């Protein structure tokens, strides 16, 4: 289903809130892995599997390696949902 970036960001925020404790009032397109202490290797897996389930997409290994900030995730999702 085609979604614009604003819609993707909105849905993504819910997934981030479900994954991380400290996200509630700080989520933005500028957020990166370094901004969230809880964003370690285990929560990265949980975040990506939740995004895949939520958006009905699948990422390859190269994409997963680069998905370290919200803007990249939004761009990737936008491409996949075209």
């Amino acid at each position: 289903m085609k979604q614009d970036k604003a819609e993707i960001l909105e849905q993504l925020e819910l997934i981030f809130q479900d994954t991380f404790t400290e996200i509630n009032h700080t989520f933005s397109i500028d957020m990166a892995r370094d901004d969230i202490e809880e964003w370690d290797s285990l929560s990265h897996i949980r975040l990506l599997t939740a995004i895949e389930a939520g958006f009905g997409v699948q990422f390859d290994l190269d994409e997963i390696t680069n998905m370290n900030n919200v803007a990249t995730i939004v761009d990737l999702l936008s491409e996949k949902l075209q």
Partner: protein
Amino acid sequence: MSWKNIGAFQVDQATSCQFAQASGDFNPLHVDPILARRYQYGSTVIHGVCGILKALDILLMNLDRPVSLTAIKAHFTRPILHGDHVEVFSYQSTWHDQKLRLSVHGRRAQDITLVLTENGKGPEITKNAPISASKPQPVVLGFEDALGMESTFDLVWNPELMQILFPHAKQFLPDYQAAVLLGLTRIVGMKCPGLHSVFAGLNVHFVQNPSVSDVKMHFNVTKNDSRFSMITLGVTHNTANGEITALFRPKPVSQEKYIELQAIVPKNQFANQKALIIGGSRGIGEVTAKLIAAGGGHPVITYYRGKDDADRIVSDIRSHGGKCDAVSYDVLSPSKTVNMDCSADERVTHIYYFASPLIEKGEHLVWDDAVFQKFCNYYLSGFGQLIENFLSDSLYAKQKMTVFVPSTIFLDQPQKEFNEYIAAKAAVEALIRQLTVKLPNWKFMIPRLPRMLTDQTSGVNIDSSQKTAEVMLDALTSLDNPSD
């Protein structure tokens, strides 16, 4: 509605051993502090299902009436270490729908979603504890081995232990539901993935009002995801069905064997070294010992808890004609002068100091005093005491000695995290500069080493570190031999 704190708990090592008896999950990650120090958390952690049952115990103490689970879903987001103060929060939308959150130092460790009914206790399970007296060992599977795997096994049920561990859950929750939850941890920790596992989450639905509860539980691997080394398992019992997700944990890092290092070290490169290697039973210390022995030197490695690891290294080196000894030494309680333990007919010429706690981030954004103190205890207090022990021997105070202490490349390449670790290493560098002035006969080396592949740097699907042996051989060959 908002989250409400409903209680707290702590689980110690002894309790985890009781939980292992109650569940049949004896994975060393939970019950063997010596093996677990080589896993990614650096110590034992509590069973995830133990956390769930502790939280349910607190919830049921507050509810004070029998309930039955219709469904339970849980995510294990962070490990809970033994002794951690775990706060339990509840978010209740209706009586039947509850969410529990376990939090350690303000960080989410588990999220549990419950659907409850007011059904009674249901059918009892006859005591069933098919666990042998000796500690059962988990299976050792690789990711590929698990594909398509399935098995049926008998649930463990020990009402006396359940009464001790979770009295309110024992009183108010149907026995078979607790037994099924215990079965889930046994699947992951002992059967699939087994030894190298991390329990990630569960989602189970219960049949209401079953007339009888079987002890048989079945599981089969239904999905696998090689990108994350993750598998999904279907689980069925006559009272429940659902799925669990588990990850394959990286195995402890194995350094190169002695015979492999012999091939890269010139034969007598380190022939004049009687080297005391503090923290030599694994990681950089292990590699250093093998390199020195391969170069004709005589390493004496110290261990604190890893006697088996140290003995394995000594055996590896000696079996190929090298010299090596091992002695016990605790840098945090240096009650004896370790140099006396290994002197015999040779004097120590080199000291290598690799003792380290788990290199972890602080809990706070900028500074965590407790974490900094932990690093200082190892890198400064422990090191300082060792040097004082040597200096108390007047001969050592006068002779030449080379002391090698690793620093970190992070001092040249500031990181966004690990403030306390980096600050402690900077303090070590300052101390070494002082000692260089104070002890003119002694030579101190404190190279800023890069990140290398050791237990400290192994992570889930992370392998970007440099080869330890290559880096250390470069560092060792740059040392002058004090006996020359």
